[in-house]
């Protein structure tokens, strides 16, 4: 509870004594490039394979001829949109971006770079962390959309090339009984997950004390705590919004 209280106070420091809009604008753009553009290849690779594997495994489990084969792509779509793209990708996001945020801020702390900002009269937490959170909340939903598209394309490629189902069946399954609210739900989840991962990872990194060993520990804690928070939020959002 004490740690949670510190986290809430940390969030408060992000919004008091802010710098000018122009300062944040440039920082947010830089972070968007770092978080979004430089992560897109990994996200596309992982999600393509995720869709491919989901197709193969769903086909493996559908042994009865009574179930039409287009159900396979329907399952791929639902799993991708509701869970795989926003939640599993959030775990990848925490591993890549969360640990990098915690490590970067931790290193800045132990090398007195954060102290240097404070001495200059700059609110270091707001200056360093707020752009990371905003950029994450902007870029992660876009990454999730890319991941969803790649996952469905991966399923299509494997499904049609290995003869599990025909292209027509795959497209039919993707289009049948589609509820567009699932997309809205996935995007809401992605914004919440991005906030949790960026803020928790920054919190862990910002309050690092000690040396290089502690920076490593902070990075590990950042990923662990972020993943736990994402899984809890996933459950609560599903209960609340579905």
């Amino acid at each position: 509870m004490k740690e949670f209280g510190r986290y809430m106070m940390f969030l408060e420091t992000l919004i008091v004594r802010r710098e000018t809009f122009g300062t944040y604008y440039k920082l947010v753009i830089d972070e968007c490039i770092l978080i979004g553009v430089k992560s897109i290849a990994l996200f596309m690779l992982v999600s393509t394979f995720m869709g491919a594997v989901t197709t193969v495994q769903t086909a493996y489990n559908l042994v009865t001829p009574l179930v039409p084969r287009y159900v396979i792509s329907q399952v791929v779509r639902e799993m991708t949109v509701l869970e795989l793209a926003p939640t599993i990708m959030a775990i990848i996001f925490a591993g890549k971006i969360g640990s990098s945020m915690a490590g970067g801020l931790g290193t800045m702390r132990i090398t007195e770079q954060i102290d240097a900002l404070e001495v200059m009269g700059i609110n270091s937490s707001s200056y360093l962390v707020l752009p990371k959170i905003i950029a994450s909340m902007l870029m992660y939903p876009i990454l999730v959309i890319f991941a969803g598209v790649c996952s469905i394309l991966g399923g299509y490629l494997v499904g049609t090339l290995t003869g599990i189902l025909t292209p027509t069946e795959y497209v039919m399954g993707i289009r049948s009984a589609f509820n567009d609210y699932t997309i809205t739900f996935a995007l809401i989840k992605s914004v919440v997950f991005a906030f949790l991962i960026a803020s928790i990872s920054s919190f862990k990194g910002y309050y690092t004390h000690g040396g290089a060993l502690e920076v490593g520990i902070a990075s590990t804690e950042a990923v662990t705590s972020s993943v736990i928070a994402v899984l809890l939020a996933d459950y609560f959002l599903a209960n609340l919004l579905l």
Partner: protein
Amino acid sequence: MIKIKNISKSFNGKSVLHSIGGEFDKGKTNLIIGSSGTGKSVLLKCIVGLLQPDTGNVFYDLRNFTESDKEVKSEIRREIGMLFQGGALFDSKNVEQNVMFPLDVLTKMPLDEKLDRANFCLKRVGLENVNKKMSSEISGGMKKRVGIARAIVNNPNYLFCDEPNSGLDPQTSIVIDELILEITHEFNITTLVVTHDMNSVLGIGEKIMFLYKGDKLWEGSNDDITHSGVKELDDFVFINKVMKSLKGK
């Protein structure tokens, strides 16, 4: 001028500073000296506000810094330049960007003016043609110089230096010391240096405060330090053979 009154600080019940008071004069290099672990850096951090003292106050030209709200503290801090022990240069920026950084964030100066000012400060600390180098590509001594350039770029009224000679060879140490002394006189600023380097003490210590186990034991100038009559200070000053021979004379 900076004035401190009854500064005390403890960590987890262990007292580190005991009611320290004193004044640091404008236009002079003021030194806080003492062995490792005596509380020099803690006192410096209390003065610049990186640590909140348990008791006491810090006054910047009669403005009570300790009891000011965050806005006023922020305003006072914008008059401060600080050189950190390891330089504390921003890894993601090159030398020029590091020096320009306070101007980028704290002023609305046009880019060409900022560049002129940064180049002036880099030239002043004897660094030219390194503008585009990253901080990881320059030596320890150069990092300290860039740190000084960054500290003075915003025309500070107060300059703080935390162990400016640590990790430097004796020759570079003297260069850095002389640079600090020159800048202090040239810009008429209040400079406060934390050090345990005896060359610095004798070379630039216009006003010296000696700390011992969290207490202020002596105050004076580098001319008086060799005949202070304080045993703990003598033990600190005359630790090596060269200094002992000086004492004999």
